[in-house]
C-alpha cells in the first residue's frame, strides 16, 4: 500500500474526528477523498502538523487525529518530547511512514534507513507507541481512538504518489470553517 491507499482506508475512521492533515500531497489526497469542515489542511509550514494537533487537543475535548509523515516528523523531531510530556488522551498522532519525502519527489528519509521513529517516540517518553503495517492502519487507529488514550501510530507503507490537484481553498476559509466546526461540537451542536 502507498499513503493514498492508507488514507482511503482510514476515511471511515476519521470522518467524524477533528483532523489536522500534513502539508502537500497528504492534504491534497484527503481533500479529494473526503473534504469536510472537520479537516484542517496545512498548505505550508513543513513539520508542524503534530504541534498544531497537540495544541488543538490540549485546548478542547474533541478527539484529534494528526496525520503526519516520517519526513515531516524528522523536521520537528523534538515535537515527540513535547507530546510525551503533555499527554492529551484525546490525541492520536498517525505517522504515515513511507520512508520518503513524497511531496518533493520521493527522496529517501532517514526513517526509511537506520532511524526508528517508534523508538524515538518511546525514548521521548510516549507511553503508547504502535508500529503497524499499512493494511493494519485503520484498525489500529480505531482501537486507539476507542481506548481514549494518547497514542502514536507509525504506519509503515511503500513510497509512491497519485496525481492530485493542489488545494485552492482560501486558507482563512479553511481555518474559519474548521473553527466553526470545533466550536459547534464543543457547544453540543451537531
Amino acid at each position: 500500500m502507498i499513503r493514498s491507499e492508507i488514507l482511503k482506508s482510514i476515511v471511515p475512521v476519521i470522518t467524524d474526528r477533528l483532523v489536522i492533515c500534513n502539508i502537500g500531497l497528504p492534504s491534497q489526497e484527503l481533500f479529494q477523498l473526503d473534504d469536510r469542515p472537520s479537516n484542517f489542511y496545512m498548505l505550508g509550514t513543513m513539520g508542524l502538523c503534530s504541534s498544531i494537533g497537540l495544541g488543538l487537543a490540549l485546548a478542547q475535548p474533541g478527539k484529534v487525529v494528526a496525520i503526519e509523515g516520517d519526513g515531516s516528523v524528522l523536521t520537528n523531531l523534538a515535537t515527540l518530547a513535547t507530546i510525551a510530556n503533555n499527554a492529551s488522551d484525546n490525541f492520536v498522532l498517525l505517522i504515515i511512514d513511507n520512508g520518503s519525502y513524497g511531496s518533493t519527489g520521493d527522496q529517501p528519509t532517514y526513517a526509511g534507513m537506520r532511524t526508528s521513529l517508534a523508538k524515538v517516540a518511546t525514548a521521548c517518553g510516549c507511553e503508547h507507541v504502535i508500529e503497524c503495517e499499512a493494511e493494519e492502519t485503520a484498525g489500529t487507529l480505531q482501537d486507539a481512538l476507542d481506548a481514549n488514550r494518547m497514542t502514536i501510530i507509525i504506519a509503515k507503507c511503500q513510497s509512491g504518489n497519485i496525481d492530485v490537484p493542489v488545494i485552492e481553498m482560501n486558507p482563512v476559509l479553511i481555518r474559519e470553517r474548521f473553527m466553526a466546526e470545533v466550536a459547534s461540537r464543543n457547544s453540543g451542536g451537531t
Partner: protein
Amino acid sequence: MSSDLSGRIVGDLVNNDIDFVTTVPCKQLAGVIEAIENHDAILHIPSNKEDEGMGLCAGAYMGGKRPCIVMQNTAIGVTVNTLVTLIQFYQIPLPMLISYRGEVGEKVACQVEMALHTKALLDQLSIPTFHFHHRDDVEELDGILKHTWMCRKPTAILTDAGFWRAA
C-alpha cells in the same frame, strides 16, 4: 522589582483572556515564565523551539483558546517561514512577548548580531512591532493585546534590558 513587572505582564495577559502560553526560555524572561507557570488561568506548554511553539499556538487558537508565545529575539530568525505560511497566511492572532537581547546593557557580544536584524526582519514581514525600553512602556501592553485580536495578526513586543533593569 522585576517580579512586580512580571506579575503586571501576566495580569494583562489574563485580563485579555489569554489562557494558552508557550515559552522558550531566555534569562531575561525567567521571571515572567515563572509567573506564567504559576498562574492557574494559563495552560503553559513549554516548547523546544519557537516554530514548534507557534504550531501549538495555532492549534490552541483553533480549539478556542487565546494563545501567546514568549521567546527571545533570536527566534525571529528561526520562525520566518512559520510566521508567514501559518500565522499570517491563516490570519491567526498571536502576541509574541520577546526578549530583545543585544541592546545596550547586553553582556554577550553574539546577541548583538541578531539584535541588528530583529527590527528589520519584523519590518520586512509587516509585523506590528512595539519596543518596550522604559518601565512605563508596560502601560501599552493591554492595548497591544486588544489590537492583536482586532487585526488577527502576529504582533511583536520587544522588551529590552533597559525595560527589565528599570523594573
